[in-house]
Structures are given as C-alpha cells and as structure tokens.
C-alpha cells in the first residue's frame, strides 16, 4: 500500500477492520477533548488479544506513550506507540456502557433523535465483535487514546480534564496482522455532563521496517523479548 487510507470517525461512531502488520495507524483529535476506545486482536487467531495487565506490568507503567507497546496475552506485540504528541493515553478507564451513558447524559434513543442518539462503547464494540465472529465474552479492558486518568497514593482514580488539545496525535505501528476495533465514545470517567463531540481522523499508511535501533524495540528489555516472540511467531507461520 503506497497511499494513505483514511476515515474520520465522528463522535459516537465506530469502525473495525483488519490492519496488516507493518502499517502505521495515525490518530488525530480534530477538536479538543477526544477519547477513542481501542481493542486489538490477532486477526488470524482472535483468542489472542490485547492484554492490559501484561502490557502494564511488563513496562512498569500505568499510562501509555511513545516507546510503549501493546502486548497480547501470548507475550507478543500487537502494536507499538511510535509517535505521540500527548504523553499519556489511558489503559484503565474502560469503555462506556449503555447504563452509564444514560445515567450521565440522559436517556436517548434512535426513535426520537435519529442519529443524534448517544451511543456507548459497550454497544459499539459488541457490534464489531459479533461482526468478526466474536462476542461479549471477548470484551476486555481497552485502551482509551487521548485520555488521562491518574491515581493518587490512596489508589483513587482522577480523570484529568482538558488533557487533549485539538490536533493531538498518536501513531500505532502494527507488529502483527491485527483486528482493530474503534469506538469514538466518552471515557466512562469523564465527569463532563455533555457528551463530547470530537471527531477523530484515522490514517493508515505503510511503515518503515523495524530496525535494530528502533525506539519501541529498545524501550525496555521486556519490549525486545516481546518483539522476538512476535518475530518467532511469524517465522513459524512463514
């Protein structure tokens, strides 16, 4: 693929598709205050999926930024964060639910509001999971791009408002053939009483090969070993 494939996901929107390994997936917040909920699965065997605890503990982090990789539950790298203008993306806030969306923003439905009704991450992700032959049992903690949740020493979680400026950008490089699920729905911990209306631009383009001096590969020794596991997997697949 030489050109750039792109789609703009409006507030409440969703998308899923298989992105082959060796692509850059660049996300841009077109207004301030974006939150894009992301789930990743091995496209060939979706029982292998993004694993929040494995990702966090291997990299001794509770936030995601440039250099970090998104690890699968099989010790491999699904995608790397190769570029990031923001410095903090949220792996612990989860996806919004129908019940939570109704409680925070008021009851909405298609019958009255047509496509202005307020969608939830739970429903968006479930639809795309079922489309891929999966189901609710495959729901796991996602990554929320563009959001920041910090924890104090008591363990209390704090959503940081106004974290994401207009134009904030983060790029994932796929290291495996990856089923990507996206839901442009609010972070469940965002206390704002109004449903955010922030479109996110998604662009997919070819990545350069991973070199020995690659930033994500060398970010931690754990990352190097996860890359080695990934390459071994593809060596076997041929």
């Amino acid at each position: 693929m030489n050109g750039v494939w792109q789609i703009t996901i409006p507030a409440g929107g969703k998308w899923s598709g298989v992105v082959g390994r060796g692509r850059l997936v660049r996300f841009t917040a077109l207004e301030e205050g974006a939150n894009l909920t992301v789930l990743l699965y091995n496209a060939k065997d979706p029982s292998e999926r993004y694993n929040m605890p494995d990702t966090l503990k291997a990299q001794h982090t509770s936030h995601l930024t440039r250099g970090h990789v998104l690890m699968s539950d099989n010790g491999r790298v699904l995608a790397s964060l190769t570029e990031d203008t923001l410095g903090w993306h949220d792996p612990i806030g989860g996806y919004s639910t129908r019940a939570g969306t109704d409680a925070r923003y008021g009851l909405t439905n298609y019958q009255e509001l047509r496509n202005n009704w307020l969608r939830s991450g739970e429903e968006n992700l479930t639809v795309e999971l079922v489309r891929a032959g999966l189901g609710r049992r495959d729901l796991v903690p996602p990554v929320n791009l563009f959001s920041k949740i910090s924890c104090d020493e008591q363990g209390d979680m704090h959503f940081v408002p106004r974290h994401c400026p207009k134009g904030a950008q983060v790029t994932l490089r796929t290291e495996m053939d990856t089923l990507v699920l996206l839901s442009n729905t609010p972070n469940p911990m965002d206390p704002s009483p109004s449903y955010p209306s922030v479109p996110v631009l998604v662009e997919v383009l070819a990545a350069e090969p991973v070199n020995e001096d690659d930033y994500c590969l060398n970010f931690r020794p754990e990352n190097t070993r996860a890359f080695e596991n990934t390459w071994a997997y593809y060596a076997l697949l041929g």
Partner: protein
Amino acid sequence: MAVFNRVESPRKIEDAVYDVIVPAGDGWMKELEPGQVLRIVDLEGNQAADTLFYDAENPEDHYSAIATMTGQGNIYLTAGSVLRTESGKALLTIVADTCGRHDTLGGACSAQSNTVRYSHDTLPMHNCRDTFLLQMAKFDKGYLKRDLAPNINFFMNVPVTPEGGLKFDDGVSSPGAYVEMQAHGRTTALVSNCPQLNNPCNAYNPTPIRILIWDN
C-alpha cells in the same frame, strides 16, 4: 501509602460448609450459590491467589477489573469493594478483609508473559494461566481461553504512582490473612494459587491457601 482497610469476619470456621486446602501451583473452580460467602486464607503469608469470577447464569459475562475499579473510583480492592462483570453486574461484595488491600491491575502470570518479563528460558515454568486452563478443562462447562480476562490477585500489592508508573511491592499480607466475599447470585469462581518463582509477589516461595464457604 494508602490506608489499609482491615475488617474482621464474624464467621466461625466450624460453621463453614466447605473447607479445602489448595497447594501452591494448583487451582480450584466451583459454583457459589446466591448469598454464599467465600473465604480465601493466605496460610503462610505473601502468597498470591489469582482469581476470576463468572456470572454462572451467563458465563460470557466475566469479571471485569476495569468495571470494578471505575465502579468504585479506586484501583485497590478491600472490604466494601463490589466485584463487577463487563456488563457492570455486581457479582460479589468483599465483606471482610484482614489483609486490607488487593490488586486487580497486575493480572496472572503465563508462560508467554514470563518470557517477556524475565527471560526466554522461563517458558517451561509453571504459571497461573496454565492452571486456569486446566481447571476450565476439568470443570467441563465450555470455558475457553477467550474467557480468561484480567483477574484479581488477592494478597498482592501493585501500586501505581501519580506519575503513571507501576511497581510490585512486597509484604502486605501475613500468615493467616484472609479475604471474604459474598455472592449476589450464582457465581462461578476460578482460582490459581500462584506458582510464580521470579518475583516477590509470593516472596519467591509459593505456599498453600485455604478456601472455605459458608451458607448465607
């Protein structure tokens, strides 16, 4: 550091309807009836009891670390914590806890994650996710690898820092410390008594746990 919330249980051992010892590296899977109270005892201290729950009426709805954390606005589990599924359903409530803090961010060890975290030559070592999978096979009710969600680590301490770091701390549990939770509905519990030998989550010395159940 955070306050440790320690609450003793009024229940007596002799009143329990079920009592079993689970050795280190072994597992346990069983359905709890509505209202039953499950106690996990860290017999020798510094052990990690990796635990998952499922709505027995709808096993596709598994325990959710995130729904549990965001539901209470805090990452640590202790007395009063409501353990929730992906759908937000309340499965159990922690009703007693003499340890005071438990982790649900750190997940379970696996052969594959061991190779990432420690070294490639740890691949043959025994691990929690193998225990979970074997218990699922023996339970024989259709549970598969895809049902393995991020779990609870009872008796384990994985603090995060305000700067966004994450670390593994030792020493929050002690011999005889226990945690008790009451099931709201029919709930399937899956436990791996952690065999990890590579980090201080169980002081490099995996030891037995005891599991007791009381009727409501």
